[in-house]
């Protein structure tokens, strides 16, 4: 293999390791700041509203349509085995354990994550973060932490709403449209779905919340203070968050299954 390619490979690997190290250090700093940030809970609540409440419409709409598709596909598949009445169980397990947390996280990265990254990037570009430093106010403590915690708290709530609306969507198609018995739909779901399944989904959504929020605040806070830099930070937020969510999903599923 020619030397320049090897050199480039080594440099790329080192760059990736450096970036990973920087992420880890930033995560450690955020973890250390968390107790203090929770004391100013008003700021966190404000960000839960920004990241959560403002994403609600897109989450609910997506949840409804995903649930409806699940209802259609599930009915089609289960009908072949003559077990349409298991539709409720299949939809609930699929949504609670997998689709709810994952799709919510991907939507969160696209909607709230990009908003966070571009907001922080613009604050950097317009010297607002530097002005805070000059006012002896730590921007990580005052600006980054509430946004990070807001994202972490909002994600499981959004995932829960997504799954709930999704199950309703599946019921809408399965029961109202395809004629699955409503009693069977709900009772099978109640019998088979266990509390551990709900916990598995909740745990996943918390981990995804930490990952997506960390990526968004890191990329925004460290963006190059130009229009191009902010744009790049926003794009990187979506790409890194999405890949991380899918990777973490596999790892968590492998551990918890």
């Amino acid at each position: 293999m020619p030397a320049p390619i090897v050199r480039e490979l080594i440099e790329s690997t080192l760059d990736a390791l450096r970036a990973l190290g920087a992420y880890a250090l930033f995560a450690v700093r955020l973890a250390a700041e968390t107790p203090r940030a929770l004391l100013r809970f008003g700021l966190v609540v404000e960000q839960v509203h920004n990241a959560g409440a403002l994403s609600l419409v897109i989450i609910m709409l997506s949840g409804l349509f995903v649930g409806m598709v699940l209802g259609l596909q599930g009915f089609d598949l289960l009908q072949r085995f003559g077990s349409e009445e298991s539709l409720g169980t299949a939809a609930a397990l699929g949504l609670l354990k997998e689709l709810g947390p994952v799709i919510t996280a991907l939507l969160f990265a696209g909607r709230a994550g990009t908003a966070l990254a571009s907001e922080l990037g613009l604050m950097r570009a317009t010297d607002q973060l530097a002005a805070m430093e000059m006012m002896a106010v730590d921007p990580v403590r005052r600006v980054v932490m509430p946004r990070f915690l807001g994202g972490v708290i909002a994600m499981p709530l959004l995932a829960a709403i997504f799954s709930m609306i999704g199950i309703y969507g599946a019921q809408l198609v399965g029961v109202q449209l395809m004629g699955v018995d409503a009693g069977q739909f709900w009772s099978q779901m109640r019998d088979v779905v266990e509390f551990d399944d709900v916990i598995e989904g909740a745990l996943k959504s918390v981990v995804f919340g930490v990952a997506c929020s960390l990526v968004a605040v890191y990329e925004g806070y460290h963006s190059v203070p130009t229009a191009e830099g902010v744009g790049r930070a926003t794009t990187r937020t979506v790409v890194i968050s999405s890949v991380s969510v899918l990777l973490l999903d596999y790892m968590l599923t492998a551990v918890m299954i």
Partner: protein
Amino acid sequence: MASRATAVTRPRWNRPRPEGRARRIRDLTAEARREAAVIVRGLHYTVGRRIIFDGVDLDFPRGSVTAVMGPSGSGKTTLLRLITGQLRPGRGLVEVEGKDVAALSRREIYRMRRRMGMLFQNGALLTDLSVYENIAFPLREHTRLPERLLRHVVLTKLQAVGLRGAAWLMPAELSGGMARRVALARAIVMDPDLLIYDEPFVGLDPISMGVVLRLIRRLNDTLGLTSIVVSHDVREITAVADYCHLLSGGRIIASGPPAAVAGSDREDVRQFMHGLPDGPVPFHYPAPEYVEQLRQAH
């Protein structure tokens, strides 16, 4: 020897101990410290291979307005960042109110900054807060003032810059001049001892410029501040400054009262002060011979 820019977050144990600092601190007399709020001695600072400061000595007299002027890229803003502890010098001493800035921990730097106000080039107002909340911001972060007293302080500062009526506007609704004045009100809200202006006249119309100029002088005199103004608007700043320092090529090429600097015989000083297009600072960026390069294109 080339020195390296050192980030403010570098751990204390890992910071370079520039040679000669101890001697320079010893050499500063009590009188110099009494008369100057900010003292710079033997300052060297480089970025990569580019020398920004090559042995700069400066004093910023207490209670006066001191202008730091110089061509673009001469290191004016870098000097401010060194004074405020955002950067650390490669070698030399930067002392603010008797404290060696390079030796301060992050917490001590924050404590020092509470006694400083800074006006950024574009105002740097927090865009999601109203004018009122922008000015209240440092008070809310650092004090536990009751809301009534806080309102009193904020309105007093807004009155000082003539924008009490704009208290509930958002930054996006302000003109450039108004934003600069709001930022000035925010910079003085903690009653600082030292007020720093980074290019305060950039992009202002003549009326707004006149207002900001008058405010710089008036605030300095009425509040008993020490003001440092970085600018290359020679005519405007020399009208209000007590002292001028002229930076060029990494060194101070002229210092003193504005009239004395304007009357300097040095060619480079004359070129800058009178805005001559060619001189020691050449009009042309270094390039190959003109005709030769045109021929090569064919």
